[in-house]
């Protein structure tokens, strides 16, 4: 059941600073327990707050997020997340400019490699954030994607 009550402005709950800075996402993301409320939530902070953890997410260049610099069609933006970090148990993709920023999460089984590729909808030019969970820690990296609505480029 999607709760489409008020539109909550997506601000404050995610502070996107320069690379290397700690990001103010809610810590302790236990993606296996993610429920629909998290996905319906328009507030990223509460969407990610599945369980309390000990550390805030940090940007890590071992998390690689690949997406186009410019998306002609915001309805179909290819994004690939992979990492060289070991023992990754979960990956999430966040579209910071969307009304409901948490777009997808993936729980990895023991045989899985930390690699996922899919296509997301982006409401407007914004950051795509890859979140990777290793033990109790969260690592992220960010790719800004420009979205041209109408597809005329520039």
């Amino acid at each position, binding site marked *: 059941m999607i709760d489409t009550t008020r539109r909550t402005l997506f601000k404050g709950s995610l502070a996107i600073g320069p690379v290397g800075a700690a990001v103010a996402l809610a810590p302790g993301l236990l993606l296996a327990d993610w429920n629909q409320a998290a996905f319906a939530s328009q507030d990223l902070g509460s969407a990610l707050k599945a369980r309390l953890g000990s550390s805030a997410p940090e940007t890590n260049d071992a998390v690689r997020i690949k997406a186009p610099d410019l998306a002609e069609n915001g309805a179909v933006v290819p994004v690939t997340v992979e990492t060289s970090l070991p023992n990754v148990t979960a990956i999430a993709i966040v579209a910071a400019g969307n009304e409901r920023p948490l777009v997808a999460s993936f729980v990895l089984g023991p045989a899985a490699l930390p690699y*996922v590729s899919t296509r997301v909808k982006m409401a407007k030019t914004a950051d795509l954030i890859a979140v990777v969970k290793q033990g109790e820690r969260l690592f992220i990296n960010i790719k800004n994607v420009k979205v041209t609505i109408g597809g005329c480029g520039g």
Partner: protein
Amino acid sequence: MSDIKVRAKLEGTETVVKCLISHPMENGLRKDAKTGELVPAHFIEEVVCKWKGEVVLTASWSGGISKNPYLSFKFLGGAAGDPVEITWKDNLGQSQSETAPIS
């Protein structure tokens, strides 16, 4: 006829799986151009990917995944002929499954 296309290919030690699912993936925020009414949410909530019956990946999606969703993932240990099964379930309770052998 299943609306899931699955390709699982062994590349060295890695099995690379690519699948394309036919699904409207309506997030419930879009207005019908003709009626002006909100198109109700209808999107895949969960995709379970199994290899030889073992869960390799569980994806939880919102309506923010594109229409006719594409998913690719990789795992180790697969051999040619092993079955890879993709099952999706959407918010209306519909579900579908498709199995393909690793080639």
